[in-house]
């Protein structure tokens, strides 16, 4: 009957990052920042970065949102630290594939522990929650000051 189980969505790692988000706050001395909104639900996130020589030296996020959006932002900051811009973009693409299956299934080895978000795919209305911080990071990388939206 109910194919996707709630446990697939709310995995322990996700609940843990929801309770204790990593890299939460504003990065002092950040040289990139972007705000993201999900107008559908009012969720918002701010991502602050320090980019040096094309490398994401440090990253933090702040905002309010559901467990999925908070955990996704938290785990994104962990995965992104030390990545070059090209590596960050590649990870963004893999994460997008993980959640949507488009344009092709992801390379799970590239995602590492981010695969805990695979269950989100079965909850289509929650995909935007999981991608908000990622879109925000992307616009921070593209421009110094940006507002990203899931719409």
């Amino acid at each position, binding site marked *: *009957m*109910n194919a996707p189980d*709630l446990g697939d*969505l709310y995995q322990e790692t996700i609940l843990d990052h929801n309770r204790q988000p990593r890299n939460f706050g504003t990065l002092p001395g950040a040289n990139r920042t972007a705000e993201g909104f999900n107008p559908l*639900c009012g969720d918002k996130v701010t991502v602050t970065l320090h980019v040096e020589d094309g490398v994401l030296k440090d990253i933090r996020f702040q905002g309010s*949102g*559901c*467990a999925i959006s908070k955990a996704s932002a938290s785990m994104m900051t962990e995965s992104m630290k030390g990545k070059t811009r090209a590596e960050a973009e590649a990870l963004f693409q893999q994460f997008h594939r993980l959640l949507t299956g488009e344009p092709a299934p992801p390379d799970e080895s590239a995602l590492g522990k981010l695969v805990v978000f695979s269950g989100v795919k079965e909850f289509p209305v929650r995909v935007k*929650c999981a991608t908000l911080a990622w879109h925000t990071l992307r616009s921070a990388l593209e421009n110094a000051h940006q507002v990203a939206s899931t719409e």
Partner: protein
Amino acid sequence: MTAPADLRAPRPRDAADLRGAPASFDVRRVRRDFPILDQQVFGKPLVYLDNAATAQKPRAVLDALTRYYTQDNANIHRGLHQLSERATAAYEETRSKVRRFLNAASDTEIIFVRGTTEAINLVAQSCGRTRVGPGDEVLITAMEHHSNIVPWQMLCEEKGARLRVAPVGDDGELLTGEFEKLLGPRTRLVAVAHVSNALGTINPVKRLAEMAHRHGALVLLDGAQAAPHLGIDVRDLDCDFYALSGHKLFGPTGIGVLYGKESLLEAMPPWQGGGDMIASVTFEKTIYNRLPYKFEAGTPDIAGVIGLGAALDWLGSIDSTACRAHEDDVLAYATRTLAALPRVRLVGTAREKTGVLSFVIDGVHPHDIGTILDREGIAIRAGHHCAQPLMDRYGVPATARASFALYNMREEADALAAGVRRVLEVFR
């Protein structure tokens, strides 16, 4: 929960019920009129608690729509043929039904619009633009839906007028003393929700209208959430405008009503131009049609109007006093049941409430509540309820909102509580 004197007044249509047979309301029988309720979601019986967003439709409404499109479909007010006559008659009969539902003085005071939002915009754009000037004020409350905020903001911006906002207390009640203090010689219009969509608070609108009128301001009541639950008597309330949506009142989407006092509507310029709102047109001058057609430009939602008529007929077959008692009982029961759970905090605990139970759970975002309840077959709304300033007031980004209609039962409140317990398990 009891209502204050002005709200306890019976609906006009049931004055006879009070004198007649003892009140009775058989919720299981009522539910049989709603085919959609009889289904399973994720293998669980559907528990539909999103009625403040939109209500389900009784079979009588669905049948009326089918009948109209299979037998009577034609444009109205102009056809010389039989079908057009039938469609026109059904459309205009609904106007009379709405007039009786609201206890308005005349059919000419009933304007069909798309919904509450359009009704408010009509008043803001037609009446507001002629009455509000630089330095004038429009007064609303902190518990308004965006649709009773933004049209007034747009008007005030255009006219250089000022939007004033009466505050609400921690319990979700309007601070009527503060409201009164904000009224003054510059107040031209006052727009207030009869019932708050996010909190369920019933505002003492008759008293508020009296206060506003003492200062010469006109009063619009947003009745979107009140109409499905309360008896409405626009003459007793003495409001100048009353707006409601058909789809929250068990009718189709896309149809709503603006009531306005005839003298005011007469003086107001048309809002939209087009067919049906004219008496004669030349390139030099157009003579506008009489009320209510002056405000109904273009082919209206004829089927929607007829469906709304069927919804009002269906409501008229319900003993509304007993129905209100049932609704109050279910809401009070759900409130008690939920309030007893750990980590649950109710948002909006006004003494006079109807239909809405907003809550938050410590450590759980409302969206996660919504997803988990959905898997239990329970439909609620999670979000800001188009009332972001109100969410800011209570320091929450969003709430979970269970909203009830006359067909909901205590058993569904139990299901909600069980669902919330499941949320607490997942988010230990």
